[in-house]
């Protein structure tokens, strides 16, 4: 009896859990969490009113699409910026190295919200009003690019000296060494933390609402201020972000597993 319970709810490296045991434990955890949440809500004696919020569904939908649009722009752009700054930090021309270094340290050391205001008031004012969306995506990319460049730099630094030595001995040029040795090897190490940063980009895009970009979080703000239904306005938003970030998180985990097997 006790051993049956043990195998149903406990697992370690020597005795991994069966799929059934994992499903049962997952359901249990989810049930407990919902119990806590509904208990807390019951204590508030909150009155749900989904009707008024439902009337704004188009606003949510458009906001969600805008968020996806911003992310779709910011993801490749931040990768490019990250790569550029990672390479600059390895440049043989020292001033360029410091440009990259200063940018990365300042960006990582200050809140995104502050950066959004700064970039916007310094550069954004000169832009036409309908370019907010683009400007927002660029600001977000400048922010995430700093984080990605550190991930890339660590990935490049992680390529063993012996590999670089071999590449030189064979007669590769610097560019060939990057192309055929450093990038393919660094990519494996970089991908899991990269995917994590992608999820951050999606979530961080919510701060762009302060520029009046009508993305997902702003939609919730608008709706809640008109309906006074805060939970009903922000719950769909939480779910909408999860819908985007959960697949990335799961993908990250599978990448990490694969990276473990490959070495």
């Amino acid at each position, binding site marked *: 009896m006790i051993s049956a319970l043990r195998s149903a709810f406990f697992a370690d490296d020597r005795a991994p859990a069966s799929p059934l045991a994992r499903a049962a434990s997952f359901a249990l955890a989810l049930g407990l969490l919902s119990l806590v949440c509904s208990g807390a809500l019951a204590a508030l004696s909150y009155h749900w009113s989904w009707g008024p919020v439902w009337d704004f569904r188009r606003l949510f939908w458009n906001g969600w699409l805008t968020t996806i649009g911003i992310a779709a722009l910011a993801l490749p752009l931040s990768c490019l910026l990250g790569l550029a700054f990672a390479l600059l930090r390895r440049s043989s021309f020292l001033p360029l190295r410091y440009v990259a270094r200063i940018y990365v340290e300042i960006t990582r050391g200050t809140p995104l919200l502050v950066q959004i205001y700064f970039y916007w008031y310094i550069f954004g004012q000169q832009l036409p009003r309908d370019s907010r969306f683009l400007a927002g995506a660029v600001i977000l990319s400048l922010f995430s690019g700093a984080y990605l460049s550190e991930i890339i730099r660590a990935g490049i630094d992680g390529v063993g000296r*012996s590999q670089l*030595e*071999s590449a030189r*001995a064979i*007669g*590769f040029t610097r560019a060939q060494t990057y192309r*055929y*040795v450093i990038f393919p*090897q660094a990519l494996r190490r970089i991908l899991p933390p990269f995917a994590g940063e992608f999820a951050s980009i999606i979530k961080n895009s919510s701060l762009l609402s302060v520029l009046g970009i009508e993305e997902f979080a702003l939609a919730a703000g608008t709706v809640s201020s008109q309906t006074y239904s805060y939970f009903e306005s922000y719950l769909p938003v939480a779910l909408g972000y999860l819908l985007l970030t959960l697949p990335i998180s799961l993908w990250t985990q599978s990448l990490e597993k694969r990276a473990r097997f490959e070495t």
Partner: protein
Amino acid sequence: MKLVLHNLTKSFATHRVLDGLSGDFGEPRSLALIGPSGGGKSTLLRIIAGLETPDAGTVTLEGEALAFADEEKLRAHRRRLGVVFQAFNLFSHLTALANLTLPLEKVHGLSASEAEHLAREALRRFHLADHAHKKPAQLSGGQQQRVAIARAIAIKPRLLLFDEPTSALDPEMTAEVLEVIEELKDEGRDFLLVTHEMGFARHVADRVAFLADGRIVEHAPAEELFGTPRSPECRDFLARILKY
């Protein structure tokens, strides 16, 4: 190989590894560098391989001085050599086969099919045909080193450089790698070998140079150097090392 070294100096930080090293070895097919650890053997090999730049001095190979200041020429020099390292240094993300085809295609301009043909031939030669699709991590140390030798040979180098090729291997694998090097000697390939395997150096090298304290203390035909070493340093070294 015609190799002349003149007055080579190399320091790392404050440590002087090569100290006015000179040597004219005539025209041996194979040259072994022996001597105590830290005596500068590997540094000398790396300078000859064009991987390290000496602070002063010249290296003349086949009558041609190495242009250490000209990266372009130095790269051309590296392309004509096959270097085998102590730690194998195979590209860890590539299969054995791809480790051979990559330099053939990207450095020596062969087509993909030509490169694969040559690479498979080289792998077969060293009894590695069954391992062509394995990554280095799936191969034993001895197999990895043989793949590394196959990679060095496949480009048809004018000179092979072995930097302690068996130091990271257990005795059995050492034997399988030494066998391969011996085969290469029988084939008449030129090579330079840094090694701690004295018996093997004596057996396989035409000429042996003894390095200590950043200089070539003496060099002679293998039998002569091991039979009647002239310098007291070399005599001491051999006595110490051959004692057990």
